[in-house]
């Protein structure tokens, strides 16, 4: 993926560049809002990583102008402010995701990669998700693996749906809590892990091939 990082703290920008670079992405950095805006308009990136506090043009303003000008590139806000209010503000300005500093490198990679998948799709809405021999019918809400029916609780269904939509991609625990449970807080304990292991028991236990993998230090990945 081609990623543009707009961040004025050079050391931090360097860190992000290395983290994303190591994960196999092409990263360019700009240190101010105005420059970032021009660059994001000139070149079609796969994702933008924007710091909220920027010289010349604050991140919020930059983001609004970019969206108003028709820019569609998915964007992630980085900020030291972690309030829900700030998060909502950021999302309203046109960002697709929001990550509070400090963050784990894996969290940043997972979220940036999730953004890349969010490219606008023109096709008809998906009604069926497939990962290997695992199939999910979104209309009848049936889940089958290798033709074998799997019964899921509503929350397990949502959890699996999210994982299947992001198949092949690492999703973090925080992402799951945000997207599946719709809560933005730090649960401290391993509550999400337990839900995952229950889901795993249902979809993977009786099969040789394990689809739901744990990514050490980062989160989970559903992969055929």
């Amino acid at each position: 993926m081609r990623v543009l990082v707009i961040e004025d703290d050079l050391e931090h920008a360097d860190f992000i560049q290395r983290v994303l670079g190591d994960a196999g992405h092409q990263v360019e950095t700009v240190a101010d809002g105005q420059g970032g805006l021009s660059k994001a308009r000139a070149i079609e990136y796969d994702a933008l990583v924007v710091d909220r506090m920027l010289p010349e043009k604050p991140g919020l303003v930059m983001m609004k102008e970019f969206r108003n000008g028709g820019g569609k590139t998915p964007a992630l806000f980085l900020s030291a402010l972690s309030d829900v209010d700030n998060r909502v503000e950021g999302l309203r300005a046109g960002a697709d995701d929001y990550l509070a500093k400090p963050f784990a490198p894996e969290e940043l990679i997972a979220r940036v990669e999730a953004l890349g998948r969010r490219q606008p799709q023109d096709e008809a809405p998906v009604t069926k998700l497939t990962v290997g021999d695992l199939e999910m019918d979104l209309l009848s809400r049936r889940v089958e693996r290798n033709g074998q029916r799997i019964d899921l609780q509503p929350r397990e269904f949502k959890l699996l749906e999210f994982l299947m939509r992001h198949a092949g991609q690492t999703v973090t625990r925080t992402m799951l809590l945000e997207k599946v449970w719709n809560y933005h807080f730090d649960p401290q304990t391993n509550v999400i892990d337990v839900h995952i292991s229950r889901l795993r028991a249902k979809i993977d236990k009786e099969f040789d091939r394990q689809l739901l993998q744990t990514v050490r230090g980062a989160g989970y990945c559903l992969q055929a």
Partner: protein
Amino acid sequence: MRSGRFAFVRTTTFRLALVYAVLFALFSAGLISYLFQATVVSIRAEAKSQLEAELRTLAIARQTGGAVRLEQSLIERALVRVRDFTYQFETATGERIVGDMPGMPVEAPDEVGEVRVVHFELEMPQVDGSPIITPIEGRIVRMEDGTVLLVGIEMDQRLRIVGQITRAVATAAPIGILLALLGGFFSARYAARRAETLTTITDAVMSGDLTQRVPVVGSGDEFDRLAEQLNAMLARIENLISATRHAGDAIAHDLRSPLSRLRNRIEGALIGPIDEVTARETLGITVEEIDHILLTFDGILRLSRLSAGAEGKLARLNLSDLASEISELFEPACEDAGLLFSEAIADRVHVMGDKTLLAQALSNVLDNAVKYSPPGGQIVLKLKAQSGRASLSVADTGPGIPVEDRTRVIERFVRLDDARTKQGSGLGLSLVDAVADLHSGTLSLQSGDGDSENPGLKVIMSLPAMD
């Protein structure tokens, strides 16, 4: 009010008293003149018209029944002695036919039919029999047959009452004015003194002594209420400042020790040759430690923002839904830890709340319950709505918290000795408390559902409920 014995003269109270005194004087003068106008004048007019009416009645009696009938009427009137009339009826030659007086006190007009207005004095017996000289206003008339009729009305009795009232008001007014001034003087001095106390206390507070409190004298007046408010404000400020100081100490302690540990580890690694394996290991641990420090910082930041009221947006929130969702989130983790989880959540309990903060608070409490309850125990989450309060409680079967420590654990960074082995920042319950506070609610700790060995802990958050 810093100088001068008569400084109170400048106080609002005294000025008001002065204004009232002047107003009272004006009012009294007005009252007196009104009384005079309204009563004296109208009593006179009334007496005159009564007098003339009486004269007319008698004239008619004479016209219809002659002197005999008039005489009859006069005798009857003398017997009954209605009103304050006095009569004298004499022949043309001055002989008395009927009358209270030995003779006509004034000379009768010569011309027949002429009514003359006369004033004279008459000695009249009082109720106790002693005579009193009374001024009389009368009408005297000579009839066609030459007889003379005098009808008089006594004015004094009526005017005396007016005079008494007027004198009473005239005497009372200066006394009232004096009293108003005295009252103003004393209340002004009282107000000045109490204001002086306030000034002294606020001076002391401004110079840094936050333990000062304004005395409440128990009069229950506005000064007492002001004093109570001020004291409450001072207590709150003192609390906040001591909390800040305490937090400062705690930050110093809780962040300084991991930072020094970190420093020592890095310095230790720098001694001697560095091989890649140990270097990686050291760096890995370093990152973990720093993450923990950052987490603690985050916690402190959130707490201060919460306590300052800078975080959280309250809106109508279905607490039942939130409790169910968080229960659902935690239930598997409880079972995984070998704990029996059960819930009793009342439907449709609404509060003015911040979803994220309440979720975080409930999650902190559940997290503690899972962490400290030994396997085989149980966790019970309850939500009730009762008399305007929504009560959200989590009871566990862990070791509990001794009664004497319950207030302390809510403070920032306080971790009881047994808890030091477990992971945590010591900010969990402080955050719950701050969240409860932000929602105008309370946090209380009780014994839980355990046995004598593990009494358990019950954490109750009580918030004002909405309809």
